[in-house]
């Protein structure tokens, strides 16, 4: 019953998100039309609105802060140059993230091809191990999980995923794109996206699981005065 209620909540939340997104898409289309008509201030509104999300996406893809700024600039310049070609068949956000993804991929293929070529090393879906949840992770309050330390641990768990898995997880679970949108951005099939997402989510869960279990053990040792 608890799970059904949880799923119901997720569904209601998804419906609310969908309604919000339609509104955002309409708003973006209006701004894009103004930019195409020559209103540069409108373009700056789009930059202002999306720079944080694009910066985060590029940071997660490339892992090289010295390059992220250049890629951020290149992404928005390419978007500006290509705005006439934005047909509006997808949302502006999907279109922009596809440009950012392609920009980062081009950079990586040229400078770090090994990152992209060997990005599937988690293996296939059937190999995943069944790792039970640690009670410490589940019972830790959300505000503690979202503390500075908790966020650092989360970022590290995401960053340690192979490239393709990390990118899919960031697009779906951090940025909130639908599976179909992620498949468009990544130019991958939906089954491939789902498979990578499944493994990425469990890998992050397992990393957090291990961290909170270990943290709890260390706390107990400290409390009992035991030192290694």
């Amino acid at each position: 019953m608890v799970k059904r209620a949880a799923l119901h909540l997720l569904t209601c939340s998804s419906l609310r998100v969908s309604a919000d997104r339609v509104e955002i898409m309409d708003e973006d289309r209006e701004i894009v039309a103004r930019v195409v008509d020559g209103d540069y201030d409108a373009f700056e509104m789009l930059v202002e609105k999306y720079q944080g999300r694009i910066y985060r996406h590029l940071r997660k893809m490339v892992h090289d802060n010295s390059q992220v700024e250049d890629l951020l600039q290149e992404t928005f310049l390419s978007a500006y140059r290509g705005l006439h070609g934005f047909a509006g068949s997808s949302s502006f956000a999907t279109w922009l993230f596809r440009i950012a993804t392609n920009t980062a991929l081009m950079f990586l293929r040229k400078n770090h091809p090994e990152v992209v070529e060997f990005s599937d090393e988690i293996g296939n879906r059937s190999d995943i191990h069944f790792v039970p949840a640690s009670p410490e992770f589940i019972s830790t309050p959300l505000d503690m999980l979202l503390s500075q330390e908790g966020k650092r641990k989360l970022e590290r768990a995401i960053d340690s995923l192979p490239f393709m898995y990390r990118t899919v997880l960031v697009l779906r679970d951090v940025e909130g794109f639908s599976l179909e949108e992620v498949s468009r951005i990544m130019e991958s099939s939906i089954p491939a996206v789902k498979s990578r997402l499944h493994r990425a989510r469990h890998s992050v869960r397992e990393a957090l699981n291990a961290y909170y279990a270990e943290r709890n053990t260390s706390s107990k040792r400290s409390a009992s005065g035991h030192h290694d």
Partner: protein
Amino acid sequence: MTRCKEFCDRLSDYLDGEIGKNECILIEEHLDVCPPCAGVFEALKTTLQLCREGVSEEVPQEVQARLKTFLRQHCHNQECGE
């Protein structure tokens, strides 16, 4: 354990609403009677919530300023779409 693994392999699709009604019922019935799988489900849900709320999108002020300057210089040299 094999059966539990099969259920856990479907939890990601379940959370995305990507599975049929009959399979949903099977998963929910299993979660109701299997504490280890219910634990994995809770942990996975928490992981997704952390991903939504815990990854910073802050852009350093100087990066924002340089982006604005860069785009003004390069975009003003040409019309949008060229």
